[in-house]
């Protein structure tokens, strides 16, 4: 990149910029670099230098009823909330892209708004509203709340994918005798699936990392992983936290890879078509 005839100032700029960016990226990765090794520490303190290698903290969290319960809860609440957000969000996105009506902008704004409203306000509002309905301290209430928070991600990604979708394909299916439901499942759905899955992954990540609304709505029996981590950090930062964090990091790397794969696949399909 750097031309051989570059001036000293240009050389300084070239090196300086890369150095600065390197430092910022180090800053971004530092927490991950620090926490993963500590989860294998044999000592009880979350501190460097490490005393030795051990997997005792992983054994501990899988043996601890509280952490097991938290994992179970997260694995119950997040998939259900994601499913609800994906189904409702995908249907609504198709409706939004295919129709024009007065007030559409306002309706879209309402569908996106859970992403904008500060999450503490969502938590307090749902807590006060759900309490008399008996939905606080219940899985139903928690799933509904997490679905609300995930919906905007599904709506925005699926709408964006549908912008590039050729609806003549649906007309073609109809002209060949497919009814709308069949056309949806055989034509529309397979083509926009990457968008729906990306939106679903965002919704899942949101729910899986959600702690504020959970703090308000969940009783101890419904404590999710982040909720359990929150009280763990409050009381005493032990390597068990680092072990849970490492598991979550692995999970997020998997999600990131899936997302990147979907994006490339989508790009390939599009460039192949045009």
């Amino acid at each position, binding site marked *: 990149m750097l031309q051989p005839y570059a001036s000293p100032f*240009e050389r300084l700029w070239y090196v300086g*910029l890369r150095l600065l*960016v390197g430092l*910022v*990226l180090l*800053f*971004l990765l*530092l*927490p*991950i670099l*620090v*926490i993963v090794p*500590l989860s294998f520490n044999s000592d009880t303190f*979350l*501190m*460097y230098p490490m005393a030795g290698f051990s997997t005792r903290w992983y054994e501990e969290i899988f043996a601890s009823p509280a952490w097991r319960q938290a994992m179970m809860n997260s694995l119950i609440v997040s998939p259900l909330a994601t499913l609800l957000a994906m189904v*409702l969000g995908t*249907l*609504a996105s*198709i409706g*939004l892209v*295919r*129709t024009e*009506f007065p007030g559409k902008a306002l309706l879209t*704004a*309402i*569908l996106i*708004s859970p992403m*904008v409203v*500060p999450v*503490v*306000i*969502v938590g*307090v*509002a749902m807590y*006060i509203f*759900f309490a008399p309905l008996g939905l606080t301290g219940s899985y139903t209430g928690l799933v*509904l709340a997490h679905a*609300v928070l995930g*919906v905007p991600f599904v*709506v925005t990604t699926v709408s964006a994918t549908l912008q590039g979708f050729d609806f003549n394909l649906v*007309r073609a299916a*109809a002209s060949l005798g497919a*009814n*709308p439901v069949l056309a949806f499942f055989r034509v529309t759905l397979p083509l926009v699936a990457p968008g729906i899955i990306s939106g679903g992954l965002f919704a899942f990540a949101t729910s899986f*990392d959600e*702690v*504020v609304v959970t703090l308000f709505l969940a009783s101890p029996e419904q404590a999710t992983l*982040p909720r359990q*981590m*929150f009280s763990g*950090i409050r009381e005493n*930062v032990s390597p068990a*936290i*680092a072990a849970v*964090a490492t598991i*979550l*990091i692995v999970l997020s790397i998997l*999600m*990131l890879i899936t997302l990147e794969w979907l994006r490339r696949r989508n790009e390939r399909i599009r460039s192949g078509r045009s």
Partner: protein
Amino acid sequence: MTTATENAVFAPPTDGRPLRKRLRNAERRRKLLYGCLILPLAVFLIVAFVWPIASLLARSVDNPEVHDNLPDTLAQLGDWSGKDLPPAPAFAAFARELEATKGSPALPAVANRLNREETGYRSLVMKTARKLPLEAGADPQAALIDIDERWGEPATWQAVRRAGGALTPFYLLAAVDRSVDADGQVVSVPADEAVYVDVLLRTFWMSLVVTACCLLLGFPVAYLMANLPAKHSNALMIFVLLPFWTSVLERVAAWIVLLQNEGLINRLLIATGLIDSPLQLLFNRVGVYVAMVHILLPFMVLPLFSVMKGISPVYMRAAISLGCPPFKSFRKVYFPQTLPGIGAGTLLVFIMCMGYYITPALLGSPQEQMVSYFIAFYTNQTINWGMAAALSAVLLAATLALYLVYARYLGPTRTQAGKAR
């Protein structure tokens, strides 16, 4: 089930209606069908999200205590001039209705509500309630004044009437450190009770600092990524996205490990001889800033990158070939084109900052708590939902105002437009 389109095109014109009309009907039916697809989500969000938030906001002006529990008393006080003592039926109604609240949560609610009008009224109400019911045949007016002579003062009854409105500006005014005095004038509360303006300013200031840091750190990263070949920039993008996808709590835990007194940062600084004793980096503003910048930096880099990616290098080359020095051409030619990205990134980060709760709660001292903390505090700890609602209203208003600016001028569609250019 055959589709509307199919009918319109292939069915023979049996009913004699013109084709155009039938096409229009088919089109309308299609729109209705697609409109119905939005319905489930719209209903779900209105019931589970919009309604709860609206009813929370309504609580910020709700004033049910006296209004619901002493309706007859308030009716009797309706035509009262306010100068001398209220009419005798008002005393009778008050004694009857206050007695009815005994033993229920309504009594302390009324007492607390009246205490807000004048300190000391809580004990007045509780003491009066204890002496109720009045002896049969006793004159309610004389009996109440006998219990406490304050019932013989018009000011007391004026306070009851003032507290009796269905709506009150009290909480919203309190959220900006204002109150209404006995004459109905809006006045500032005494300096030692004023806290919320400070909290709001602190929230704004901390959001501003975090946003500025994100911009300063994020701009070079986005610039380099936008100007590297795709292969390298994709690799750098992973460095930005990985923290973006990892849990906020996990990162908070990591920063505790890094910033604590015996943590890596302090050890490093001591080892290099820069400091002799560990710096306090945790449970103060430094720790909160570091963690918040770390969490929000990707939200700054991503919009900046998408705008910079769309800026053609041709402009810079043209400026330099025309004799403009590199730095000046960067400032005059390149930088102005990044402004949509800067606007989008800063507003996005600022909006997110203002609602932050977890990071300051775990990494900060009481001096770092922002509005969200107080909203949670009033909901969970003191159960003062009116105050929580009023602070929510203030925070929501500020957030929505900024979001409207973002959506109107800098939203995703706008930056996309900038990309196309």
